[in-house]
């Protein structure tokens, strides 16, 4: 097995950033150094994770340090600071034998799914002993139905979807859990080229907008943005559900005037010269959640070890994707026909954050899309306030109860701590959306502060 990212982390010459099957020239694997059985592989994965964590996932500083002091000395130093054997034992204990090795995971071909997709070609699933088939899905309704039917063991979902499914909104009521976010930010409002002079949303009356799904951050953010500018999203404009891959074709056909959609379709609209980027959703709410990794409660409780391994793989992949220096390799790995099926140059602009806006400017925003696994429960509460605001749900809501049932902070926190990532102490951080602060302790007060609402 040649999983190059499992090369010896104490060796200054080894390359840890490229996965199995990587065709690049530097990846001629030093076969002798690779572990040959699953036990040794797991040991190596743990060592590797700790070493990479110590160096802040910076390959350059790891390799120069190892070169300077020598791998053996470094291992001794690290061993005196961290009880390696105890950590290995603890991790193996918590992993245990996998109940199910072959998994089917659904994804919708957008850059939000990056960790779920790239974990396959870059070897993150294999690293935790999983054989995952990632299946491209035509849209969110199909992803929901295939997940409910058990055809997918787990799926890429929009962060409001597991909440909606658990509450039985727009689906049968099945407890779903969301142990990790995939990405934050990474969406944009795109308008057709003919609306170049209508940058003020007050001029948007009567226009038709696409969002990927009803229970999506896209829908809630677009509604919020329109309402803040005095437009009633139900009466003054038309908001249609359009699967992300069909957004650009619809914009070109004049079927839509604009959309708030996931990348790479925003950048693809610019690339095709049919639209321009009006704003990034990051500028409405910096660090807003978007897509997530979700599965049914049943899957998690019936296969606790598989669930844990999967969560490890995804959080590891998410962490890897968030590093700016890895983004180029990730973009190349996910642009292929098997995954996003998009020009590399488009995906590159999304992931690097240096992009053309379609109006003649080159803009730079390294946080245009970012990857952060922690499922903040305050964000679930915000999503619930917006569901209630626009009438998707009526009556009293147990905001915290639902948030804590679905957004599994404990599971994510445990894995993040094992990997040496900082774990926030309070899952209810407050934040502001378009400058208006949100206090997660008082969702009803927040809700009634909006003049425009349906409940």
């Amino acid at each position: 097995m040649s999983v190059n990212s499992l090369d010896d982390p104490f060796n200054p010459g080894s390359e840890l950033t490229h996965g199995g099957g990587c065709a690049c020239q530097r990846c001629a694997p030093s076969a002798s150094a690779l572990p040959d059985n699953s036990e040794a592989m797991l040991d190596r994965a743990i060592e590797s994770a700790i070493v990479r964590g110590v160096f802040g996932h910076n390959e350059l500083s790891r390799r120069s340090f190892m070169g300077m002091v020598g791998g053996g000395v470094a291992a001794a130093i690290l061993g005196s600071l961290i009880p390696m054997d105890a950590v290995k034992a603890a991790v193996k204990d918590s992993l245990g034998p996998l109940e199910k090795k072959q998994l089917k995971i659904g994804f919708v071909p957008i850059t939000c799914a990056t960790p779920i997709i790239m974990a396959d070609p870059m070897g993150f699933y294999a690293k935790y002993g999983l054989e995952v088939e990632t299946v491209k899905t035509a849209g969110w309704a199909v992803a929901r139905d295939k997940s409910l039917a058990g055809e997918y063991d787990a799926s890429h979902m929009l962060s409001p979807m597991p909440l909606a499914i658990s509450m039985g909104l727009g689906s049968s009521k099945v407890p779903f859990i969301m142990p990790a976010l995939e990405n934050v930010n990474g969406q944009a409002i795109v308008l057709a080229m003919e609306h170049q002079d209508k940058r003020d949303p007050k001029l948007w009356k009567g226009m038709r907008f696409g969002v990927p799904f009803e229970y999506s951050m896209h829908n809630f953010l677009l509604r919020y943005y329109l309402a803040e500018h005095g437009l009633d999203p139900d009466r003054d404009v038309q908001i249609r559900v359009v699967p992300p891959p069909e957004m650009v074709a619809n914009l070109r056909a004049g079927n839509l005037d604009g959309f708030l959609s996931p990348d790479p379709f925003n950048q693809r609209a610019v690339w095709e010269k049919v639209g321009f980027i009006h704003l990034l959703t990051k500028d409405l709410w910096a660090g807003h959640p978007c897509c997530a990794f979700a599965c049914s409660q049943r899957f998690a409780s019936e296969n606790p070890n598989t669930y844990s391994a999967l969560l490890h793989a995804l959080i590891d992949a998410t962490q890897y994707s968030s590093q700016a220096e890895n983004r180029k390799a990730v973009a190349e790995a996910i642009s292929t026909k098997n995954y996003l099926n998009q020009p590399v140059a488009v995906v590159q602009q999304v992931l690097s954050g240096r992009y053309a806006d379609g109006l003649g400017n080159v803009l730079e925003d390294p946080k245009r899309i970012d990857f952060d696994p922690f499922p903040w429960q305050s964000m679930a509460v915000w999503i619930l306030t917006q569901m209630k605001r626009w009438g998707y749900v009526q009556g009293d809501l147990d905001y915290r109860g639902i948030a804590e049932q679905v957004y599994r902070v404990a599971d994510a926190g445990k894995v993040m701590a094992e990997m040496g990532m900082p774990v926030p102490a309070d899952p209810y951080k407050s934040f502001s959306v378009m400058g208006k602060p949100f206090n997660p302790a008082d969702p009803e007060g927040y809700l009634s502060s909006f003049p425009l609402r349906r409940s």
Partner: protein
Amino acid sequence: MTAAISMRAAILSVLLLVISLGLWEVLCREPAGVVPAADDEYALLMGAADQEARVPPPSVVFVHAFNELSQPFYDKGPNDKGIGIQLGHSLYRVLTGYLLAALVAIPIGFVIGMSPLMYRALNPFIQILRPISPLAWMPLALFVIQDSETSAIFVIFICSVWPMLLNTAFGVAGVRRDWINVARTHELSPLRTAFSVILPAAMPTILTGMRISVGIAWLVIVAAEMLVGGTGIGYYVWNEWNNLDLASVIFSILLIGVVGMLLDLMLGGVARLVSYQE
């Protein structure tokens, strides 16, 4: 005389083909690509004009078709398979759904055709169910059956059942009374009459129904697969549409046409076998 006409028709067909391809080639020629200067970052990020999606000229489509057809069975992961594998999945779904439909439709059609009572009793249901677009069943099927593969087969089943059912009933009801009377004078049992007199007599009409059905099933599978995704020629079209790769889309459109024609020709051949002259 007829030979001369078919000769002239063939020449005309070729001429039409050449003219339309020529026009297409001229109208859709790629614009001369202006390579952006290396220091013009905006132009580089926007992509040159020749990278934009547009309707490709036939020469590009042919080159693409050649590439695809020269490796029809490659398998690069669950979402990237060769055109042969995709067609195989679609044909499997169409034939399974279609054969199941035939198994159900032909016996029921027979009963309806034989018995005016059954005809009247079942007619209201048939009239309501028949005009429903098969794709409208898709959400319900996905929810109830809980399996996308079976749902696609179900949709094919439901769309191909009606033409076969109605044509069988029509054919059976239209068998000449004289022939049945002759059977009766020979004291044939009702079952024997059904198989040795009515079935052969109704066969051409039944085959017409089967031919219509297979055409509809092939039309519907493309749309169903675009909706559900995963595998199949419909998924292939959808996947290339995502990437606005129109050369692939046109190639698959042509291929869908060719396969549909072959299916029709096959049933046409069977129909000739069972046809008779009165």
